[in-house]
């Protein structure tokens, strides 16, 4: 043959990629109605590429589901719609606002309130209504302490609860996918990825991200240790800093009332990677203002069914 040997190398990223593809296919093959949770954040954008690698040239064997807090960055929603249109796959949007209007949840203290917690109910309702038995997410074990013990396939009872003491042992890459009707699992194909792995993969695969991940000018103000964007949902309160224009970028996309920005000049993927290698704070401590009030906050929310 005249063409050079094309044999993909076995490297850290290709190993992580292979593991994720394996998990995606197992979930697709063994569950009746899987769904992929898509937030338009960097982890779920990587997840989409992994799904393309797992299933193209065929279609995805599952729809995408976005739990929309209503407190979004406009750029992120525009990006979400674009990427879904380009992929030609089905997107379902479950709105926290609908859960509020239906009286399923109560909004926290007026307009500045975080809707992160309310998401759990909206998500569980959406899963139950449509009979999804597996929800695929982009969570990583290195994000936060209590996640370090999460299985790749994490079993939830019919109330969406996670019992950390009754986890199924997860042996080799042999996933036990047997569930009863009403029970479901969360599947995390990227469990073993670190934040840097995600960025390096974005670089390798040349994936587009919402613009807020890169340095841009924005009116922000300080609240405690956090830098928050001024928006129609949130404005400085007494005790907060004064809003002013600065160069910032985000490390996660989420409810913009609680997602903190970091001051940064990193305008490209390569620059972000460089910045990360020098980073001093883990992702969550810096950018999730509402996880701070209790060190066990995330564990509690996971028991409640939060992702």
């Amino acid at each position, binding site marked *: 043959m005249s063409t050079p040997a094309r044999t993909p190398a076995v490297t850290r990223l290709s190993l992580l990629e292979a593991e994720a593809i394996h998990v995606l296919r197992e979930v697709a093959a063994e569950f009746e109605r899987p769904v992929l949770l898509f937030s338009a954040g960097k982890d779920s954008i990587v997840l989409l590429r992994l799904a393309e690698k797992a299933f193209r040239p065929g279609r995805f064997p599952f729809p995408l589901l976005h739990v929309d807090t209503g407190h979004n960055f406009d750029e992120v929603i525009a990006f979400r719609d674009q990427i879904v249109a380009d992929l030609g796959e089905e997107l379902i949007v479950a709105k926290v606002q609908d859960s509020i209007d239906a009286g399923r949840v109560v909004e926290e203290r007026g307009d500045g309130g975080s809707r992160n917690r309310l998401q759990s109910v909206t998500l569980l309702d959406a899963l139950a209504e449509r009979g999804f038995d597996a929800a695929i997410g982009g969570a990583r074990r290195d994000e936060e302490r209590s996640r370090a013990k999460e299985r790749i396939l994490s079993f939830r009872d019919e109330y969406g609860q996670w019992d950390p003491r009754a986890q199924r042992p997860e042996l080799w890459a042999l996933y036990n996918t047997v569930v009863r009707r009403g029970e479901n699992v969360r599947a995390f194909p990227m469990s073993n990825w670190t934040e840097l792995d995600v960025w390096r993969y974005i670089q*390798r695969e040349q994936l587009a991200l919402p613009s807020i991940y890169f340095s841009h000018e924005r009116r922000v103000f300080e609240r405690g240790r956090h830098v928050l964007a001024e928006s129609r949902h949130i404005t400085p309160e007494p005790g907060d800093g004064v809003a002013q224009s600065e160069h910032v970028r985000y490390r996660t996309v989420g409810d913009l009332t609680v997602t903190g920005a970091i001051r940064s000049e990193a305008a490209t993927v390569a620059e972000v990677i460089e910045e990360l290698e020098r980073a001093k704070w883990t992702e969550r401590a810096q950018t999730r203002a509402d996880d701070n009030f209790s060190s066990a906050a995330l564990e509690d929310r996971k028991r409640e069914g939060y992702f």
Partner: protein
Amino acid sequence: MPIQDPETQDLLRIAVGGSVDHGKSSLIGRLLLDAEALRADQVDEVSRGELSHATDGLRAEREQGITIDVAYRYFSTEKRGFVVADTPGHTRYTRNMVTGASTADLLLLVVDARPPGLTEQSLRHVQLAHLLGIEHLVVAVNKIELVDFDQEAVKAIEHEVAATARRLGLRQATVVPVSAMEGDNVVTRSARTPWYQGPSLLEVLERAGRPSVAEDGALRFPVQWITRAGAYRGLAGQVSGGLLRAGEAIKVLPSGETSRIARIDSFNGPIDNVRGPLAGTVVLEDNLDVARGDMIVPADDPLEPAREVDATLVWLGTEPLTAGRRYLLKQTTRRVRATARELRTVYDVNDEAVDDAAALRLNQVGEVTLRLATPIVADPYSVNQTTGAFILIDELSHDTVAAGMVRATRAAISEEDQKSPDVVWHPGKLDRTERWTHLGSKGATIWLTGLPASGKSTISTALEQALVHRGRLAYLLDGDNVRHGLSGDLGFDAASRAENVRRVAHVARFFADAGGVAVVALVSPFKQDRDLARRLHVKAGLPFIEVFVDTPLEECARRDPKGLYARAKAGRLSGLTGQSNPYEPPPSPEVTVKTLEEPVEHAVERLMTLLDELG
């Protein structure tokens, strides 16, 4: 943070074990800290004095001060990334130890430098790791500053480690004296242990081999997913042994059909080779009937599908295993039913054989024989840790109850006489002549084979009715009906079809023996399977009439009373016989019915006459 190049870095998976309080969590904390992987907020907590807090996750554990579940940690150096599975020390958490070890390349065992050194628990960890195929043991002799950096203390442990490694047959055992608390020899070599000339712990981990995938072995490619897009049909999976090469002659197991790899596709275009454990999508030269759960192996591979396996189980369930119990077994991408046929030996947590054990209990290790309802394609675990591994799932609780490692496989029982060695045929008081004479009836089996919608059901229901109306005991075993219950657990791949035919053949034989006419209407596309049914009857001295319902494919597709052909055409049904699946017409059936030429009543009359002629 060291600069890493993701294209040269690889990934090593480490299971960390050891007795409670020997400093496992602290050592992991130290590794993370000194490899500069901990970022500032975690460092704050660590430097508050509790290194182990970096790894103790769940609140319950914090309250009780023990590690109860596997926690995964990540750190990197320039050379490689590390996935660290921190596994609990208590015997009652054996299942977590096994979980951590099942994916690990290496066991890092933390042992307190002070007596007693290696404890029962640490030995247990080494045994389990070895059982799961880990061949490289690294022992960190910890708290070395508490024994004043005494070489003798380390030597004593080193002796014990060497003896254990010899006894178990470990390929490599390395001992490093460290202090998790003060950092000696963890990342950099310490001046306080001048008698130790070896590498630091981190250096040992950086240099260790990564043995996870059997690259030098034979090709193993379990089909995980069928990728379809228009006419495209790719077999997607993860290479689980050997090298997947375009152009290679292959065979699909369990069917045994052969072909050649026409192409290997990836998202980025066609590729020539794929190494394990990477993924690829294979297109075969021939359009074989391949389904999820099948395995692609070299064409000349001697591997045979197994109906029976000898295996070692680590029991993780609260309900014990006893002989005769049924489970779901998952191996590669296949899930089958398995029955525990024999429990040969049970070892307790101290690795001692339990006398006359009738049950395999939580945390025990046992040697068993499993009988499989449908075959699996497996290698011994010592040859291939992917295709030789399986889990057992309890059918009621759905819990994962065992980690299994295949020791030996037997193709055995694909023949009609299959039975377990300790089962004997129980003769009744009646012989056949006596039975038939008293009942005034004679038994036989009429076996109708043909394409879906060829007219088997129409002819057979008419025949059944005609026989019963004339006072003969007759019963229709219809292909659709046996799929409820009797063969309700089977799919439509070649192996499952063979099993379906085998079951129906046995039922028909019993019925014929009882004096009835068993009317079987079954696609039964393969000659081999029908021949088995015939042999069964011939051996038992029972008449067997094979009827070929010969209707052209176009006519079947036109009739299509169940809409099967329409669904297949729309791509909503795969593996329909005559379409994507082959049908082998019988070369010499007793009767051929050409339904385009012969009316149903006429065919029924002919069959009745034939039965009468049998006497």
